[in-house]
């Protein structure tokens, strides 16, 4: 594959990933969130494979496969089963102030570009311009966790943040060593089980997955 073509494909994929991040930010329906999240994982996986192919690094194929199974199938499936068991799959979350959230999101993207500019100048990799997008995805995931009040949406935000990190690893460095990547994947999987247990605990204790109920532990008692 032509190097510049690969770079172009990757830029397009990066743009799409950023787009999915914004889509996550404003999607109100829980099922819709899961679909977007799975798409984001798929884009990430393709992007990793493209980088692996053009740079001739075969260990990136394993990462791509790992992303595909974990982020496109396993995690959305687990969440899907959970929301069905908890009967919240049709719930619509009220999201206040979408325009403001979007504006903050845009500001965060600009901030990310600014922050990574010294790194971008140093990098010689074909993927270097995507580092800013990766950081933006991390920031937008954080924003989503702050603005949303439901346990499930917070988790989706967290996982999307994790996607951003993964994207950073491939875009800045052609992927972390395999030991580390496997370890990270394992941690995410354990985390998935833990939040699964949590959903049930929260549901049985608070009778809702709305975190607005959780306001007991405050400082000024």
């Amino acid at each position, binding site marked *: 594959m032509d190097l510049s073509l690969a770079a172009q494909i990757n830029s397009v994929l990066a743009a799409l990933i950023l787009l999915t991040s914004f889509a996550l930010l404003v999607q109100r329906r829980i099922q819709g969130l899961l679909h977007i999240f799975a798409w984001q994982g798929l884009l990430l996986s393709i992007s990793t494979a493209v980088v692996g192919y053009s740079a001739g*690094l075969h260990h990136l194929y394993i990462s791509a496969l790992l992303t595909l199974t974990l982020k496109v199938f396993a995690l959305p499936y687990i969440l899907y089963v959970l929301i069905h068991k908890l009967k919240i799959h049709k719930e619509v979350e009220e999201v206040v102030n979408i325009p403001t959230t979007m504006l903050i999101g845009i500001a965060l993207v600009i901030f990310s570009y600014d*922050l*990574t500019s*010294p*790194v971008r100048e*140093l*990098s010689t990799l074909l993927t270097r311009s995507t580092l800013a997008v990766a*950081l933006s995805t*991390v920031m937008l995931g*954080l924003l989503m*966790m702050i603005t949303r009040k439901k*346990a499930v949406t*917070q988790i989706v935000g*967290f996982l999307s*943040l*994790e996607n951003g*990190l993964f994207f*950073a*690893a491939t875009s*800045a*460095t*052609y992927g*972390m*060593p395999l*030991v*580390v990547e496997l*370890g*990270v994947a*394992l*941690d995410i999987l*354990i*985390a998935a089980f*833990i*939040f699964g*247990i*949590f959903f049930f*605990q*929260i549901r049985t*204790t*608070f009778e809702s997955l709305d*975190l607005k109920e*959780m306001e*007991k*532990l405050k*400082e*000024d*008692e």
Partner: protein
Amino acid sequence: MALILVFVTSLLGAVVLAFVGDRKYAHEINIIGSGATFAASIFLAYEVYATGPMLAGDDFFFVDAFNVYLAVLTAFVSTTTAIFSRKYMKFERSHGRVGHKSMRFYHAMFQLFIFAMLLALLTNNVGVLWISMELATLSTVLLVSLYRTPAAIEAAWKYFILCGVGIALALFGTVLLYFAAEKVFGEGTQGLLWTNLNAYAGSLEPTVLSLAFIFLMVGYGTKVGLVPLHNWLPDAHSEGPTPISAVLSGLLLNVALYALVRCKVIVDGATGSNKTGYIMMAFGLLSIIVASFSLLRQKDIKRMFAYSSIEHMGIATFAFGLGGPVATFGALLHMLVHSITKSAIFFTVGHAAQMNSTQDMSRIRGLVKGNPLVGWGLMLGVVAIAGVPPFGVFTSEFLILTAAMKNAPYLAPVFLLGIAVAFAALMKRVMPMVFGDAAPWQGSLKASHFPVILHLVLILILGLYMPVFLNDWFHKAAELLR
């Protein structure tokens, strides 16, 4: 050899206890497992003391003066906590606060948590360091919510989300670190090995590393519980079972600070300045001040001591930031003495809360009358943690103060103010709980005295006399972190 044993015993302990579950001897197996890990760690320490820093397992592990003492400390406190946990958890079990399944989970996760901390301490790979920090968080999240009360679940959720986000940012920092290292070492694990990074720190790109440090600071700083990233800590430390509070406060915070300091050394080597030191000093001082004033407002006894942990982590962070041999020596000693003292305090606090069946300080009265050893244990523990001589905390705080006077005299008064406020706040709260007439609702119980006495004696010894090997270690470690 001892190195492998350290990991085998803790991991094996987790597996065995997962099977043993809630049977009769689970508590004893927990103690034996932790004790075996402790014994192995002593052998490891002896090896390192005799032969110097060592690399093992294809450079995967790196043991030097800095991490081996923390490993021994981790294994030691977890052993005494296991001893304490035996009587404590039996009481909780018989009062129906935890169920059959929870006990199985509790024991297995306790051992896994120790394994994760030891892996974080002894690994040479900065990536694996991150993974094991995350594992340590994940293994304790569900222990915090063990009682299934609304408050406990809320605390655990906060802990899970905030630490998850924090540590995710640390991963971003690690990626940037690897990005810089890749240029020097090329593809592969070599670029993540701390020994390599440290040896060639001068040739790493300083701008990238400065950026990486900001992420690492925020990420691991969240786990250390530095203000303003500390929101999860008082909740998580107060709502879980007390043995977990003891190991979270006494050990996990240390391990997180260790991770931060390891990264700081590399970044300093690359930038050739002490910019990171200033950042750490700022975080440290802010933590000391905010935490000590927050102590004044607390009503829940475990919550109060959680704030005290934030304060002491702030002191250690401040001292590492100051740099120089004296401050670093003080910081290392402070991590040791804080860990021993704070876990002893949590042991007595746990029993005090059980005797009065509340964690509300206004309802805990006259502990000395009810159970003299618990009462005096709490009193002496608090006296020690407040920094009164002749206990060890005084020594380390004094060292740090002298270093602050010399290198940053304008900050020393702020530091002193924090310590003074914390002293006043702790004394004001603890005096009425310990002395006076016993509350009518106060019950009696079989308390676990041995761990408390052992910790307090150790802390007294460390205040009066510094063993030669410890002195050597700290000097070597301080040299390393120069």
